[in-house]
C-alpha cells in the first residue's frame, strides 16, 4: 500500500548550517502532486512545497526539494537554517484517495 517514511523524530541543527529532512515514499500515483507541509507551533499546517515533476527542483522560502521517482524520494533541504524554520514538517505523497498520508512528521529545531 501507499506509505511515507520521513526522518524520524527530532532534528536539531545550528542556525546558519544546512539542514536536510529525508522523505521516501511508496505510491503508485506518480502523476499527482507531492507536498511538503509545515506546521509552526500553535498554528495550522500549510503547504511549503509542491511538485509533480520528476527531477525538477522546487523552491520556496529558501527551502528546496527535488522529486526523484527513480529512488522514490522527495527530500527537503535548506542551505542555511534560520531560527524561524523551527517547526513540524510533513512529507505528503499522493495516495490516489481522499485520505492523505501525513504521518508523524519531522520536528525541526534550529538552535542559536
Amino acid at each position, binding site marked *: 500500500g501507499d506509505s511515507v517514511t520521513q526522518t524520524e523524530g527530532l532534528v536539531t541543527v545550528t542556525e546558519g548550517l544546512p539542514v536536510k529532512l529525508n522523505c521516501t515514499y511508496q505510491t503508485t500515483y506518480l502523476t499527482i502532486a507531492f507536498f511538503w507541509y509545515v506546521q509552526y507551533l500553535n498554528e495550522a*499546517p500549510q503547504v511549503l512545497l509542491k511538485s509533480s515533476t520528476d527531477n525538477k527542483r522546487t523552491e520556496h522560502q529558501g527551502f528546496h526539494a527535488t522529486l526523484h521517482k527513480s529512488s522514490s524520494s522527495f527530500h527537503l533541504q535548506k542551505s542555511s537554517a534560520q531560527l524561524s524554520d523551527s517547526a513540524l514538517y510533513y512529507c505528503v505523497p499522493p495516495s490516489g*484517495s*481522499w485520505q492523505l498520508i501525513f504521518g*508523524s512528521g519531522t520536528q525541526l529545531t534550529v538552535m542559536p
Partner: protein
Amino acid sequence: GGIITQTPKFLIGQEGQKLTLKCQQNFNHDTMYWYRQDSGKGLRLIYYSITENDLQKGDLSEGYDASREKKSSFSLTVTSAQKNEMAVFLCASSIVGLGGEEQYFGPGTRLTVL
C-alpha cells in the same frame, strides 16, 4: 482567497459528555476533513466528506460522528469525551481529493476533558 473558521477555539468538557466542534469554509471547496493531533504528534484523519451530505470514515472514526449538511460547513461530534483527553482538532478543505490538491487548514479547536 478564502478562510476556514473553527468554533470554539477552546473546548473544555466533562468525562462522558457529548461535544460538538464546528468548521466553516468560504473557499467553495467540495471536500472537507477532520483531523486529530495529539501533542507533538502528527495528524490522524477522523472523517472526511467529498461533498454535501457525504460522510466517509477515516482511520480514527471510532468515538466520533460527523455531519455535512451544507457545502460550506462540516461538524464533528465527540460522542463521549474521555477523561484527561487533550488534543487539537483540525478542519481542512480542498477542491477535490485524490491527493492532488492542497488542503487548507483551519486554526484548530483545542479540547480538554476534565
